[in-house]
Every structure is written in C-alpha cells, then in structure tokens.
C-alpha cells in the first residue's frame, strides 16, 4: 500500500513525458504522413530519394563518420595518457579538457570562423611567415574541424571513465603471466574500454549527423546537410509536412546507428566476460 503511494510520485513526470515527448512525436508523425490538406501521403518521407535530399543525407553521413573517426583516434591515446598520470594533478588536467565544453556552443563556432576565414588569424600568421595560406572556410573540411572541436569531450570522457575503472591488478596479473605491452593493450585495455568507446561513438555521431548550425555558419551556404534541409523546410519554405517527413527519416537513421552500435557493444562485452 505504502509502496503504491510512493509509485504515484512518478505521476507528474509520466504526465509531463506523455504530453511533451509522446504527444509531439505523434504530431510529427501525423505531419510526416499527410499532405498540407490533411490527406494520407508517403511523399514527404519518400522525398528523401530526391537527389538534393539524398545528397544532403549522404554528405551528413560522410561528415558525421569522419568526425567520429577523428574524435576516436584523437581521444583514445589522450584518455590513456590522462589515465596513466597517477599524480595529484590528474583531476586538474581532466578539468582542463572539460572546460571548453562549458563555453557556449555558438561561441565555439564563432572562434573557429575567426581562425579559419580567408583573412583570419591562421592565414594571417601563415602569410606573415611567407607560407601559403589555406582556404577551408565554407568547405566541408571546416565543418568537420568545428564538429571535432565541439564534440571531442563527448568521446574523451566516456573512454577515460572506462579506463579509470580498469583494476590495476588485472594488468599486473597479465604481466606476471608474461604478457607484453601490446598483448595487454589488445587483450585487456581495448575490450574493457569498449563500452566507453561505444557510448562515445553514439554521443559524437548522433549530434554530428543531425547538426545544422555548424554547417550553416561555417559552410557559407555551400555545405548542405540533412539538418539544413529540414531547418529550411520549416523556417524558410514553411513546408511542415516535408520537414516532418525528412525528420522521421533522420530519426530512423539515428535509431539504426544506435542499434548497430549497441549490438556490437554487447558482443564486445560478452566475449570478455
């Protein structure tokens, strides 16, 4: 009896989530599968096969994948180095790598626009040294650059946390049994950090795939990602049905990529345990 009463405390939360998660999802599905006049239609969803939309989706997948791979390659050694520093300053050094994450997302984009632009800081420095400038603003490269900068902490932190949880005894035992550093790395460290890597990949890949602000501000209108197509459908063309249809397609890709990663994660954890 008392237990049931306690369960009721979740009531407001359940109502809130029904009203502001479930209901909006139903509304977006309604728009996605109807025409402006309210008739059932699959056109909004199938319009992803139009060449403009398809190109945007493919580019988004490509950029999100490059961003995720770069983040992973940068983060793994970084997490290892941070974890190996068994000193008093460790907390402080981890803090240093979290701090930039706390600055407003938009301002981090602003900083990169400033650095990368034609007459920006990097090119001026290169020019002063009589080196050839590089012109990557308004290209997909600039977008990936900024995505890596924005999402890197989301990769570093889960991997670092997974590494910090590895018991030093296990590594000691492996050494006693004659394992070399390379064996230890592949047989112990990699499998035990797999869960961190998986959640890092999800936390970088999903926002990279769905972002529209970075490509808008650093792509100069030339880098059209699926997020930009959706944003323009809503804010410029006022075609809510098309925008909803494409959003649903995007959701399917997000869910599919997560399902894919999670199934691999279970296998990785399973083989070791």
């Amino acid at each position, binding site marked *: 009896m008392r237990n049931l009463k306690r369960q009721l405390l979740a009531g407001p939360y359940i109502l809130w989530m029904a009203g502001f998660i479930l209901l909006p999802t139903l509304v977006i599905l309604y728009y996605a599968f109807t025409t402006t006049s309210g008739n059932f239609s699959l056109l909004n969803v199938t319009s992803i096969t139009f060449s403009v939309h398809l190109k945007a989706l493919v580019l988004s997948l490509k950029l999100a994948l490059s961003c995720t791979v770069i983040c992973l390659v940068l983060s793994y050694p970084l997490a290892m180095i941070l974890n190996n520093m068994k000193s008093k300053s460790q907390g402080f050094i981890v803090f240093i790598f979290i701090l930039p994450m706390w600055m407003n997302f938009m301002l981090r984009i602003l900083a990169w*626009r400033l650095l990368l632009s034609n007459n920006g800081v990097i090119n001026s420095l290169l020019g002063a040294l009589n080196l050839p400038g590089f012109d990557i603003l308004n290209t997909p490269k600039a977008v990936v650059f900024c995505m890596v900068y924005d999402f890197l902490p989301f990769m570093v932190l889960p991997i670092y946390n997974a590494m910090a949880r590895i018991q030093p005894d296990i590594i000691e035992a492996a050494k006693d049994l004659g394992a070399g550093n390379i064996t230890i790395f592949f047989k112990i460290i990699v499998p035990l950090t797999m869960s961190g890597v998986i959640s890092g990949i999800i936390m970088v890949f999903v926002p990279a795939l769905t972002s529209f602000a970075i490509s808008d501000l650093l792509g100069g209108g030339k880098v059209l990602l699926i997020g930009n197509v959706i944003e323009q459908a809503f804010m410029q063309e006022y075609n809510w049905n098309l925008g909803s249809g494409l959003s649903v397609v995007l*959701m399917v890709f997000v869910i599919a990529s997560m399902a894919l990663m999670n199934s691999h994660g279970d296998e990785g954890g399973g083989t070791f345990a």
Partner: protein
Amino acid sequence: MMKKSIERIYLLVIFLFLYLPILVLIVLSFNDSKAKVVWGGFTLRWYRELFSNTAVMEAFYTTIFVSLASALIATILGTLAALGIDAMRGRGKAIMLGATNIPLLNADIVTGISMMLLFVRFTRLGLNTVLIAHITFNIPYVVLNVLPKLKQSSRTTYEAALDLGATPLYAFFKITWPQILPGVLSGFLMAMTMSLDDFSVTYFTKGAGINTLSTMIYTEMRKGIRPEMYALSTILFMIALILLLFMNFRPAARKERKNP
C-alpha cells in the same frame, strides 16, 4: 623517457587545439580595431558596448532565467519521479527507465521540431514554450542522477524510523533526503548546463522577439560578427571557469571522488 616526451607533446597539441580558439577570442575582445588581425591597442570599448546593448543583455537575462527555472522545475519533477520509479518493480520499472533515456538519445533538431509542431496547435510560441521544452529535456538528467543515490540509500533505516513513529514525510526528510542530496544537486547542475548550452531546441520553440544567448549569437553571426561578441565570449568563459573550479575543487567533491 622518449615515451614520456611524446605523451607531453601530444597533450600540448590537444591543449592548443582546445584553447587557441578561446585565446584568440579573449585577445580580440581587448583589441581596439575592427579588423580581425590588426592589433590596435588595448581597449575596454567592446565591453562597454556589450553592456549598453539591450538586445544582448536581454538575451543574457533570458538565458539565466530559462536555465535556472527549467533546472529547478526539472529537479523537483525529476526527484519525485526517481522516488516513484525506485518504488516500482519489474516491467513497469523497465519501461520507465527506457522512456527516460529517449529524450537523451533523440536528435536535438527532432525534439525541437516535434515540440514546436505541438505548441503551435495550442498556444503561441514565446518564453513559456522555451521553458517547457527545456524542462522536458532536463528532467531525464535529474532522474538519472538521483536514481543511483536512491539505490545506495538504506531502506532499513527509513523503515526503522517509521516503526519508531515518524511520519513518512518526516522520515523522508530526516533519512532519505540527506542521502540523495548529492544526486539531486548534480542533477540540477547538469540540467542547468544542458539548458545553458542548448541551441537547437530553443531555436525551434522560441517565439519572435525571445532570444537566449545561443539563438542571439546565431542570428548575429549570420549578419556578420561584431567585436562585442568577443567580449561576451570572454565573460562567459570566465563564468564557466569560475563555476567549474568551484564545483570541482570544493572539499566535498574531493571526498566523493576518493571513494566512488
């Protein structure tokens, strides 16, 4: 020895990658020249202009209001929810936990758009809709921070208090509350952080004339960059630095980290 120096260099390179852009913003905020790369002498002009710019100040106050209010309401709803979920068993609990993860994993743009589509059916977009949207994506952070603390808290002490004649409310505040308080606080802070940094959800759910810092900077950047934005960056960076220093290095946080 060799390995150590390679590690040092690697850390330095990443450190530069992370902080060079911020450093540039800070330096330019004191630069008395509209050109990006010419040093025109030290000035506080951009800071003065920033503080006299009503649009920026309004966006600043809106941001603070939305993040504090949404974090507070989310903390209340989320803590109650965690208490309720903790009392559940079996399938009901599994469903609740699964449902709590959905908003965390959903793409921001889709969350924002779907809420906007709902809001325009029933009301006008404005400050309220932004607040509701922020509360919605904030609650799960609170729930997920409080639940583990509830699991660790001792149920028997609470029941003993009841047996000794305490009312459930009295027993809760004397026994359970102090044990879950760290989780409630970290949930609140996490919710506030997420709210402060949000762009996509605000962008779609805000009404005309309402701006948080994120959406205001976005609009400004589409028009071109004004040096006041550098001053704003510097101030926000300093606030983040101070807050994070305070949170990480207060004595309580130290103790917690030592015995996780």
